[in-house]
């Protein structure tokens, strides 16, 4: 089997997609963003609880392919505890990593580096970036709280 395929669907990704972390709603979220990929019908809602400039809780609900589910699961893990500035930096880093523009070494990112395999699949990049665009919308004042990949 080709290495690129096993690289994309590595155990860590499959674990997250089968058993997504933080797969729940937040009762009293400070931010809630619906994200939709009209290309494939994936939809998810990202919930954040931001207090005093820090993400104290993050979760998501929705349905989608293994890549979009794993990406959202990892996002919620990673963004918890981040300051707003750190969260914005994380978005930038992931955006570069997933789209293959000026990428950092995947090892810098811990678990998130596992998503780098998506770069070899231009048609699947939007699956991985879906939840990250939801994060960016949540962090950006005045952005619509509804994002699509199109």
């Amino acid at each position, binding site marked *: 089997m080709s290495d690129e*395929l096993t690289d994309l669907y590595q155990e860590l990704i499959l674990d997250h997609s089968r058993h997504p972390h933080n797969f729940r709603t937040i009762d009293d979220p400070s931010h809630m963003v619906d994200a939709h990929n009209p290309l*494939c*019908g994936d*939809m998810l809602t990202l919930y954040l609880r931001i207090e005093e400039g820090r993400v104290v809780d993050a979760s998501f609900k929705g349905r*989608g*392919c293994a890549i979009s589910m794993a990406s959202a699961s990892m996002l919620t893990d990673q963004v918890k505890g981040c300051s707003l500035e750190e969260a914005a930096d994380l978005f930038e880093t992931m955006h570069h990593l997933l789209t293959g523009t000026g990428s950092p070494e995947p090892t810098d990112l811990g678990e998130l580096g596992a998503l780098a395999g998506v770069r070899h699949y231009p048609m699947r990049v939007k699956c991985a970036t879906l939840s990250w665009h939801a994060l960016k919308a949540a962090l950006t004042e005045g952005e619509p709280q509804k994002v699509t990949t199109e």
Partner: protein
Amino acid sequence: MGLDRAAQCLPAATRTSRWDPGAVRRDFPALQQEVRDAPLAYLDNAATTQKPQAVIESIARYYRKDNANVHRAVHLLSARATAAYEGARAKVAQFLNARSAAEIVFLRGTTEAINLVANGLGLQAEEEVVLTHMEHHANIVPWQLQQARSGATLRVLPISPRGELELEALQGLLNARTRLVTVSHVSNVLGTVNPIRALVNIAHERGIPVLVDGAQAVPHLEVDLQALDCDFYCLSGHKLFGPTGIGVLYGKAERLGVLPPYQGGGEMIRRVSFEGTKFADPPQRFEAGTPHIAGAVGLGAAIDYLQGLGRAAAAEHEQDLLRYAAERLREVPGLRVIGESPDKVAVVSFVMEGVHAHDIGTVLDHKGVAVRAGHHCAMPLMDFYGVPATVRASFAFYNTREEVDRLVEGLHLAREMLA
């Protein structure tokens, strides 16, 4: 290029006595390649078909030798371009058994054809259009735009879980305010062949015209418009082994005759003055501006190719592939086929328990098998089956049983990796 290339591009079936996919495949340059270190198994024909060399060459030849604008100049090239363009129109008319070439309008594709009719009807607030639950977005959204403009009502003919129209419900949806029934001939997701003649009869009893979206039908079925008796029929060249950007609206002469122009410009007028303009008769009335001449030429070449191929033998081969695929897909655990009408073309949609369609599509791509994964521009149909997306394998006469085997192998792999 002394010898006419067309002579070397005769369809394979005319060269062989029995159906030989290997020979047919040699007519299609795109099928000769490897993708991801495997021979390409192209099973996405409902999205678009590959083009035979005869089509590619006809377009190149047109640009090399005959290129000029149509219906305009007195010079020889313009005469040749006009003959080629109008010749293609005559071919389409004969291919579909229309009464006359004047009933054939060249447009960009099925979507534009439906939009033209939807715009032209001039729907009023109290009026109604009936469509079906299995329509492609191209046969839903143009009507919704008119609904938004006019306040007209859309009524939806239901389908059964097997993926067939509930035709007995049609009578109850029709009334004195119904302006049109619009329906796909073949579902792009389910593969179901709809009973158009029976549906037309029901609508015509009340004097209601019927539009048929034939985009998915013409690649598989021999379509006889006079036998179907529908009022409008739409198709796309690129799904019929022809080029993109060219399509057809057929309309009965009396129906096209009362439709207003869709766009204004050159070609569609009889006389223009600042006091007012007289429009040309159909089909020119609907072909404002320089048309896609090379596209029409390519579509004509595709029709020539198909007719030379022997359509009955091609259809028989496709039905064999459909039966074989249905049988082999049953071997894959957790796989559910969507669309189980006994009257289907070679299109198979399915879902796999625990694995998203997009992930299956990527695994198959890795084995060189090209399928479509997604909602297939039929989201209401996805909702009906309660799935966000399906995988769709859609076959053409150049596909093989071996490619079905590779599809099934890929599905086993996807299941092992991802389920």
